């Protein structure tokens, strides 16, 4: 594997510590640093989630909801905030004009892995945050099987990140057509959404967790298939 030299963090005396790390990790570190400087994605996403959730809460104040409706609402918020967050990974490179540099610096598989890891971290954080807000603000939002619920929410986040990273790259190549992102992602994400919603519903009811085994199986195999497919497809999207 090609390795890259990266100065991670400047030391106090102004010199930089030189490290060799895998280019995917270098890209991940770069994205985190960029995000840390502006906090643009985090701030926008947090506000987006708060806004969406307040709409839900305003509309449903005082209503008692079945676990099916609650699971559906949770996934609506999960899906649309993921659509907001994931699309930025390659668009930001286009905006800064750094796509060509990246193309020169590392091979496509490393770029894909780095972006996938960043999206993975972002999606997991997003999902955890959304669930916390749901727990606080939505009355009657009870999780009866926390282990299963956590597995589904984290697995769902991983699946969303896996499926949408290559689509984000396609959007960036298509001339930064942001609104196209959810349109392209939704049909690809549907198996994940359907099994995610039904597993979430099971986790919120007092039933056997083994009932959700087929859904967890779909989730796991979906992630494997999507990552494998996009790993090979990314080459075509990335290269000219």
């Amino acid at each position, binding site marked *: 594997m090609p390795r890259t030299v990266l100065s991670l963090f400047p030391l106090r005396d102004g010199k930089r510590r030189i490290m060799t790390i895998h280019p995917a990790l270098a890209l991940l570190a770069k994205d985190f640093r960029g995000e840390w400087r502006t906090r643009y994605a985090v701030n926008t996403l947090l506000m987006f989630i708060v806004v969406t959730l307040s709409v839900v809460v305003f509309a449903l104040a005082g209503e008692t909801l079945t676990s099916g409706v609650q699971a559906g609402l949770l996934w609506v918020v999960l899906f649309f905030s993921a659509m907001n967050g994931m699309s930025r990974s390659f668009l930001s490179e286009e905006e800064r004009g750094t796509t060509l540099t990246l193309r020169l610096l590392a091979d496509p598989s490393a770029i894909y892995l780095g972006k996938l890891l960043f999206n993975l971290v972002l999606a997991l954080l997003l999902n955890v945050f959304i669930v916390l807000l749901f727990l606080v603000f939505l009355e009657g939002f009870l999780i009866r099987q926390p282990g299963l619920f956590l597995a589904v929410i984290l697995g769902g986040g991983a699946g969303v990140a896996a*499926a949408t990273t290559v689509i984000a790259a396609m959007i960036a190549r298509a*001339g930064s057509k942001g609104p196209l992102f959810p*349109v392209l992602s939704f049909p690809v994400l*549907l198996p994940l959404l359907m099994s995610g919603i039904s597993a979430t519903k099971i986790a919120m009811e007092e039933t056997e967790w083994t009932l959700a085994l087929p859904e967890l199986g*779909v989730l796991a195999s979906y992630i494997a298939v*999507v990552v494998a497919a996009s790993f090979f497809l990314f080459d075509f999207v990335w290269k000219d």
Partner: protein
Amino acid sequence: MWWKTLLFTWIAVFSAMALVVPVAGTFDAVRARGCGGAPYPVRATIPDPRAGVHVGNGIAVPAVDRNGNRAMLVFPAQPDGLADGRTYVVRVWADSASRLFHVASVVSIDPLWTFPYIAGLGERARIIFFHVPTAWLSVIAFLVSLWYGVSYLRRRRGEDDALSAASAGLGLLFCLLATATGSLWAKFNWGSFWNWDPRETSIFVLLLVYGAYFALRSAVEDAGKRAVLSAVYGILAFVSVPFFIFIVPRVLPGLHPGSADDTGSGPILGGGGIDMGMRVVMYALLVGFTGLFSWMLRLADRVHRLEAERGHD
């Protein structure tokens, strides 16, 4: 030229059969259904017309249906040419008091072929001849589009991309036709235009995929970039499509034949399988419409080549 003549003759002949061949049931079914409702089509042979007796102002003759059940058919008047052993498709009303079947109308005399009357479907069973081929083609067109997309990524030839897009366009057309025919039919047979049966969900997903594919194509102006991105999207979408088309409708209970809770009642799919006569016409139309699809794809390819010669993209 000869294959085009053959193709269109084939489609015309089998479409005509699909529409014209009468649907006819048996006396058992009429008895099981009881009186009332619309007259019920029955296929019956009259072995001996001279055995007829006058009943009121009609004539009752003994008749035998395809299962060997006997019953008395009451014609309003002596039908013309009641010769020995003639077969009739007649619409009858059951008469509970006299256990006679009153003939409302004669549909066909000595039919070459009849389709079975399926309880709850009747004439509406004919949807299978057109709805199944369109649904089949909407998936086949997707696979063909995928195939040409992959070969574009391998060889980078503009024709492959044009064929991929043309196939997706035809697929969208057939997908819309399958949705429209199925939805109209569902209103009359299942009570509403849309029921979110697993098969309906699958065709909805396919429509979404086609829609997204063309949204992507219209978003990119550069031809090479458009070709690459749409080919990649076709492959990526294929991750989710088989799940909906081939797996979910078979493992979940639903309204369509072949669902998990389909107990094989009636001669459509399942248990005894589809009736032989219907099966022949359905498969013939499946082949015919697939031929039609490949002809339309060839036309699209020729249009692309001619436009390329003239200098358009």
